[in-house]
């Protein structure tokens, strides 16, 4: 008995796409595989290749099989190609091809656009691994170290997912793009990663938690929009990636919540909210956490692109990329004549005006992201509320610290006032994490490697991974 759910682990490249029946493709991917492993050894987690890590590996894509836990050395992780099962008779449900059968191959006229979408998504996966490669040296616990590595191997698998699509559907161009994904480097001046946020540093664990909360959530929304695609292999690939992405956002949300819980605990113990006293006590003061939040939030919302974009309209109209939860929306899914409010600057103030919705789809996705992010920040605030602390975290204005779109060249304060360079220069350190903030946070970082022990600046989690106890040996250093 075989099932399309099951993943074939006997093959060199685990997959549920019957790779063995396409020898050319199989050979091409088997040729890419050693280059990937080379890249992993060079740019993957620093000094951690020999650790035994308690990792989750998918053994099938149905609910019972994709969370299989065991100790694995990361270079031996079974990266492979997994698509959620095809839905029979699936139809394109938005854009100009609405009602037609989904494509199992790339339509010629959309080839360049699809390739661009896939390459842009694919580039973020190795980029984040590169950004996070030194974090293992300063993990606040074995539990956190394991979670970092889980994220890293799964981002690696997401790269595999995109590379499969490039190899399978884009011929020689696709193979070249797949090679280039291993050649760009995060933060490299000559050959950087494609998107800005993926060239920023992730220097400390607070930054890492903020990154996984905000930036991996961008990933969630992009993947959700692609999971609606009329190009069925892309939809099925991204749908499976979403199940893995959820863990990454969990690490971010729970990570920041635990930092807040610990800070609140010490605030109550010392009876103070003085940042200097709290820093002396070895915890991260709440204003610093707010400044980290402001930075990661603003950098991440840039990832959704310009407020108005003809590309976004083309992708939607062609049925390549939908909206978040497209299937649950009640409009005509073509959007001609629909409008959407976008922000602009007029007479030194921020104003709202209506733009054609088709051109504003980046903004639609950005606003969905913002709503989701704000809800989680509300949950962070409940941690403070429960501890009896009055401070509340907030998101800055959507126009704050933007580098892409209408506000790229306008200075806007976190409360949404258009301001001059002078005020910006004077107050930037109140709003965005300063080098001193980062140096302080960096000074707290140091590896805690005894099971069940946690660094002073973070509270233990509510529960362990896979029902294991919190003091489980999640990583064995060997």
């Amino acid at each position, binding site marked *: 008995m075989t099932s399309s759910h099951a993943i074939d682990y006997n093959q060199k490249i685990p997959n549920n796409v019957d790779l063995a029946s396409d020898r050319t493709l199989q050979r091409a991917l088997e040729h890419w595989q050693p280059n990937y492993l080379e890249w992993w050894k060079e740019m993957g987690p620093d000094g951690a290749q020999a650790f035994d890590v308690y990792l989750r590996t998918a053994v099938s894509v149905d609910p019972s099989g*994709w969370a299989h836990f065991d100790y694995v050395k990361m270079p031996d992780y079974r990266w492979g190609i997994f698509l959620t099962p095809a839905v029979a008779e699936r139809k394109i449900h938005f854009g100009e091809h609405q009602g037609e059968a989904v494509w199992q191959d790339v339509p010629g006229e959309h080839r360049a656009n699809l390739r661009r979408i896939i390459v842009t998504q694919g580039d973020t996966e190795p980029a984040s691994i590169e950004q996070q490669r030194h974090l293992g040296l300063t993990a606040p616990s074995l539990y956190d170290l394991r979670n970092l590595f889980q994220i890293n191997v799964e981002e690696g698998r997401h790269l595999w997912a995109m590379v499969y699509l490039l190899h399978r559907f884009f011929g020689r161009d696709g193979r070249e793009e797949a090679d280039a994904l291993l050649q760009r480097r995060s933060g490299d001046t000559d050959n950087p990663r494609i998107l800005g946020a993926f060239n920023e540093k992730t220097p400390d664990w607070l930054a890492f938690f903020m990154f996984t909360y905000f930036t991996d959530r961008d990933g969630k929304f992009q993947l959700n929009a692609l999971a609606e695609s009329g190009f069925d292999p892309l939809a099925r690939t991204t749908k499976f990636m979403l199940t893995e992405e959820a863990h990454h956002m969990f690490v971010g949300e729970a990570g920041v919540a635990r930092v807040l819980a610990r800070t609140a605990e010490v605030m109550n113990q010392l009876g103070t909210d003085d940042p200097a006293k709290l820093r002396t006590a070895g915890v991260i003061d709440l204003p610093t956490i707010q400044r980290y939040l402001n930075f990661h939030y603003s950098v991440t919302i840039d990832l959704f692109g310009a407020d108005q974009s003809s590309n976004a309209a083309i992708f939607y109209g062609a049925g390549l990329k939908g909206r978040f939860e497209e299937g649950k929306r009640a409009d005509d899914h073509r959007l001609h004549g629909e409008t959407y409010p976008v922000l602009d600057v007029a007479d030194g103030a921020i104003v709202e005006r209506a733009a054609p919705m088709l051109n504003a789809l980046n903004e639609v996705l950005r606003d969905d992201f913002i*709503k989701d992010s704000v809800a989680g920040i509300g949950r962070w605030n409940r941690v403070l509320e429960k501890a009896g602390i009055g401070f509340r975290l907030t998101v800055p204005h959507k126009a704050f610290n933007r580098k892409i779109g209408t506000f790229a060249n306008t200075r806007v304060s976190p409360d949404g006032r258009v301001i001059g360079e002078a005020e910006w220069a004077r107050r930037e350190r109140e709003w965005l994490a300063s080098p001193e903030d980062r140096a302080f946070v960096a000074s707290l970082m140091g590896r805690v490697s005894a099971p069940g022990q946690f660094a002073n600046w973070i509270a233990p989690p509510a*529960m362990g991974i896979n029902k294991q106890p919190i003091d489980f040996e999640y990583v064995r250093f060997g």
Partner: protein
Amino acid sequence: MAETAEILRQHLIDPEICIRCNTCEETCPIDAITHDSRNYVVDPAKCNACNACISPCPTGAIDNWRQVARARAYSLEDQLGWDTLPAQGEVAAAGQTDLPQEITRLTSEASAGQGGVAPAPWSAEHPVVHLHTLAKPAVATVTGNFPLTGEGASSDIRHIVLDFGSVAFPVLEGQTIGVLPPGVDPQGRRHYVRLYSVASPRDGERPRYNNVALTVKRVTEDHAGTPIRGVASNFLCDLEKGATVEVIGPFGANFLMPNHPGSSLLMICTGTGSAPMRAMTERRRRRIAQNEGGELMLFFGARVPEELPYFGPLMKLPRDFIDINLAFSRVPNAPKHYVQDLIRKRAADVARLLRDPHCHVYVCGLKGMEEGVREAFRDVCREHDLDWDALLPTLRNEGRFHLETY
């Protein structure tokens, strides 16, 4: 049973731990999970506890359960308003006759390794559950206490017979009963209930008597080898004939044997995990004359023959009645054998039984055996054009795979 008395093990999501990632809602095969801008919630009218959402949840928030009267289950509106989960205690205080929480916990931990809920075989006898409660336990009299392990064995395993006199205590093979050790712990609370699988068939250890047998190992160390003195097992093992014991139950409505002619049993056990296998085997032996067909295949592991409960009687069973495969891991000067080695050795027959829609599989023993047995099944399947990971959910859904480990 009146509707108001029907007990629901209600599935709930912990709003303090949940990150609202939508994975559970996406995974649920029957759309029982929904959400608003605040919480993800489970519809008690839809959820069938299939557990498909449990392992994909990245946080563990999904795995929460509360015993409630079905008529008073938490509604979607209740759940959408929560910031924290209500405690089980508040519910129990409402005066319902639900299963004790410690029983639910023990039984769900024991079957966790099968990866999801497996209904009873379709032809299983309908079980009676929780007839005797913590508030009103049955009192049984010890009518026998026999050592099963030989001289010089490193453990003491006993066959204990309890008689219920004129009190009804109907059990089926595979069910468990709860023993209440007398006295209190150092904190002054009553001891936890200990669950034991019955080792005797439904018509009694002695046919047509109102008694049951238990297979009890005297616990002298924990899983890690640290010396401890098991409260209940030592109490039971030291009981003399004529002594009385407080018993609750029976419990268990899934790990039951099929009754239809032609149904086969594939049984895998170690140590005292043999209790339910003995009960099922004995049930079948007593019905040999009916000539109902079906096979019995047993894989049974112990350290040495002297520590294998029921070794003597087992070896006397006719070979054409039961196919016995014994694995010993600590026989001096002999290679170590584990049940998984024998399963692989018998791959062809195991695969044939796995394919047989009338064959039901039972695994019982220490938690440590799960992984080895699972890998052995995987290997057997690979060798015989089956796919264990695809087959397992089918077996489970058809009530053909049951696992209890401790």
